[in-house]
């Protein structure tokens, strides 16, 4: 069985987007800075592949996942990647209420909780891991104790304001184990396993 792995880029002061993140400006003001360790982008996910070995290691692992869980907010911002984040793997979206109309491509809205969402995504991914995106969704997965790993790209910048990765007291004291630290030219790539008490 694969594991749930949260992939997020974060400033040293804990922000994953700049202030004023909206659908038209999904990274918030200055937020693109957090993703400068990736490639320049393009129409295809491979356009974001970094040009350094540490970055490629993490990026390739991310795109080897067998399912995606993304928050409603993140998903709405990016139009659910047109229904295909990478390789056509299914995309699961925990939400209180599914939007009207048919979901795009391989998107599944899950309304009975993050635990159910995690179980469905793991079943769909088989032996592969599940990619988790989104700060709120990551927090929910931590609270529900279903998040296994956090892969944090720690970017050497202070934002001072924006959207926080870890917000609110809900997760409490949670032990992490640093199982890998790679030094990419523009970010520290930190892999933590979550050790629930």
């Amino acid at each position, binding site marked *: 069985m694969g594991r749930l792995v949260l992939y997020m880029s*974060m400033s040293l*002061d*804990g922000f994953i987007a700049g202030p004023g993140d909206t659908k038209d400006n999904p990274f918030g003001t200055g937020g693109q800075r957090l993703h400068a360790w990736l490639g320049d982008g393009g129409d295809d996910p491979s356009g974001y592949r970094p040009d350094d070995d540490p970055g490629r290691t993490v990026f390739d692992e991310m795109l080897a996942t067998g399912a995606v869980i993304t928050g409603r907010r993140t998903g709405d911002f990016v139009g659910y990647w047109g229904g295909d984040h990478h390789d056509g793997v299914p995309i699961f979206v925990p939400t209180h209420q599914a939007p009207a109309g048919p979901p795009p491509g391989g998107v599944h809205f899950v309304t009975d909780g993050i635990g159910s969402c995690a179980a469905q995504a793991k079943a769909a991914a088989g032996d592969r891991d599940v990619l988790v995106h989104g700060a709120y969704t990551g927090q929910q997965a931590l609270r529900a104790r279903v998040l296994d790993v*956090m892969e*944090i790209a*720690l970017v050497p910048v202070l934002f001072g304001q924006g959207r926080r*990765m*870890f917000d609110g007291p809900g997760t409490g*004291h949670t*032990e*992490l*184990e*640093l*199982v*890998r*630290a*790679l*030094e990419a030219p523009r970010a*520290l790539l*930190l892999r*933590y396993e979550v*050790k629930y008490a």
Partner: protein
Amino acid sequence: VNPPLRLYMTMPPDGFIAGPGDRAGQELGRDGGRLFNWKDDRMSDVPGPARGMPVPSRGARIRRRRGSR
């Protein structure tokens, strides 16, 4: 010669440098000693210290913690 001012802090990924309720007599707050296990194992009921972990120099790859995979 004007030496640089360097800030040395110990911080978990969510950015706290002390637990809740830091005050005189409990300067690190509740369970805040956990942050300094890397240095002197002051709260031994949680994952152990990385004794002898080298301070990374520029360009060095950071070592894994002892006992990790």
